[in-house]
């Protein structure tokens, strides 16, 4: 019996480790390729450790490719700005739907739930025409404003605030804080775990988005990194060492944020699973 248990434990480890290797190989391969010379890349010799370790690829994309830094900046501005606005506006709407009784509340809530079901492809074409009329194509606001709220997270914040202790707000209103002041100074700080989980998902959504910038940003100057990377592929066809270096630079920020927020992230996940 005990022996059998030992065996099944070993088997489980074999499965887990095998899948961990399957997950890691593409990343390790990409990372190692980003430090290889073009000669080694095209030689067809397969080695996970670069034969001749070089930073040349990173130098190339940052210094020779003037636009690469610009794309990085565009991505940072759009993802950073978009996330900040989402956090504020989604919480405000979620708070209103949970705590303030105003006429029409039910209708707005139903509309927000319905909107979750609409696929982006339906609104993508009219949105392009609207942004064109506004003159917002090839602009940061064209990327940020249409996505500065998110129905799914408004719903999540509403669920969060519904269970929020009322006494805190009552105490705060006795202290003479107005509703908005109280929201900013009392309610939001206590919603940190929900906000952190939301921040990760929203940031990743903006950072990794490919279709919207592909449609909205047509000037090479305004590309985000995803679209820029794709154009790199066309430009450098066989120079996979450059493409992999660029891919690594692009992936790093999300990894850092994930490590930083990991604790909150898991809390946020269990929070959504509780509901």
């Amino acid at each position: 019996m005990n022996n059998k248990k030992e065996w099944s434990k070993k088997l489980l480890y074999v499965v887990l480790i095998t899948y961990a290797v399957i997950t890691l190989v593409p990343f390790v391969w990409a990372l190692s390729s980003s430090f290889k010379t073009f000669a080694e890349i095209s030689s067809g010799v397969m080695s996970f450790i670069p034969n001749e370790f070089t930073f040349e690829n990173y130098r190339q994309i940052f210094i020779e490719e003037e636009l690469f830094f610009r794309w990085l900046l565009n991505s940072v501005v759009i993802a950073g700005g978009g996330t900040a606005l989402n956090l504020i506006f989604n919480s405000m709407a979620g708070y209103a739907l949970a705590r303030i009784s105003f006429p029409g509340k039910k209708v707005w809530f139903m509309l927000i739930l319905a909107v979750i079901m609409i696929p982006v492809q339906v609104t993508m074409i009219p949105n392009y025409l609207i942004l064109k009329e506004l003159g917002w194509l090839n602009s940061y606001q064209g990327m940020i404003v249409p996505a500065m709220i998110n129905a799914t997270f408004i719903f999540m914040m509403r669920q969060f605030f519904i269970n929020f202790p009322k006494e805190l707000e009552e105490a705060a209103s006795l202290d003479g804080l107005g509703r908005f002041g109280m929201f900013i100074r009392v309610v939001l700080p206590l919603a940190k775990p929900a906000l952190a989980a939301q921040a990760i998902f929203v940031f990743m959504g903006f950072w990794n988005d490919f279709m919207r910038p592909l449609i909205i940003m047509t000037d090479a100057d305004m590309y985000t990194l995803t679209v820029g990377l794709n154009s790199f592929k066309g430009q450098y066809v066989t120079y996979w060492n450059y493409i992999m270096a660029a891919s690594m630079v692009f992936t790093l920020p999300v990894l850092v944020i994930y490590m930083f927020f990991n604790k909150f992230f898991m809390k946020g996940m269990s929070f959504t699973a509780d509901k």
Partner: protein
Amino acid sequence: MERAETSSTSKVKESKKKRRSNKRLLRDIIQGYGFMLPTILVLLTFILGPVLYAVFLSFFDVTLLGGTVLDFTGVDNYLRLMDDARAKRALLNTGLYVGIVVPVQTFLALFLAATLNAGLKGEKIFRIIYFLPTLTSSAVLTLIFMWMYNQNGLINNMLETVNLPTYNWIGDPNIALYSIMIMNIWATAPLFMVIYLAALQGVPKNLYEAAELDGANVIQRFWYITVPQLRPITSFVVIMGLIGTFQLFDQSYIFSGGSGGPSNSTLTVVLLIYQYAFKSLGTMGYATAIAFMLALIILVASILQRVLSKEEQFN
């Protein structure tokens, strides 16, 4: 007399109350709509308005030459779908993709979650590793896989060393779509694994203990306890999977350089919509019509899935 007096004071009180509640109502309206204002503006301008605009556009030929020229064509855009060979091919590709990817990634996610949940040491490290693909953008993942799928790239090399046949993963029309499937199953399964993992915490431990006493082995416990206990989560995962896979775009766009090639083998419905809307002239209305058909297909598929999984529960 006294009575009248008290009633009159209560009336005064009541009207005061009413005034106060009116004041309160006004305050709630101002606060409620104040807090909702950004949401309402975006909702109307960039979501609900565009949906109506899209309905309208789908009955027109749209030409973008400086300004926007509309030409009413009635239901032509919807009829045109019937004899558009590329649309049929796109639908077929997407259907095949959904039909294979959704079941495989759902099963893989459940399998990994159950394995991780066995209470082994180092669970946390595995969880962090498994989650990496979810964090990485589809554009980067596609580029990494294209590099590995290269004719004399890593994957073919590995296959060669163990004497397996090699493939032209990107260039062969019979293979390219499957290459994207493998990549996306690898990339999406971990996200659903995390959802399953959270749900597994809620499965009562004594169920497993009782089954173990009855002599059920690991596989039996998986099939007769884990799978049925997680049915509602599976339903959620399948619907999310359906919605995601029907909308496949980034990967096939990057894979084929936007063409859907080789020989339309990676052409998906959304890629087709993109091409008709932004890469060819005068077909923006047609693209909108296709987008509506896609939304309808996704809606029907999700409803069907929900109905089927409910029926199963009754049996």
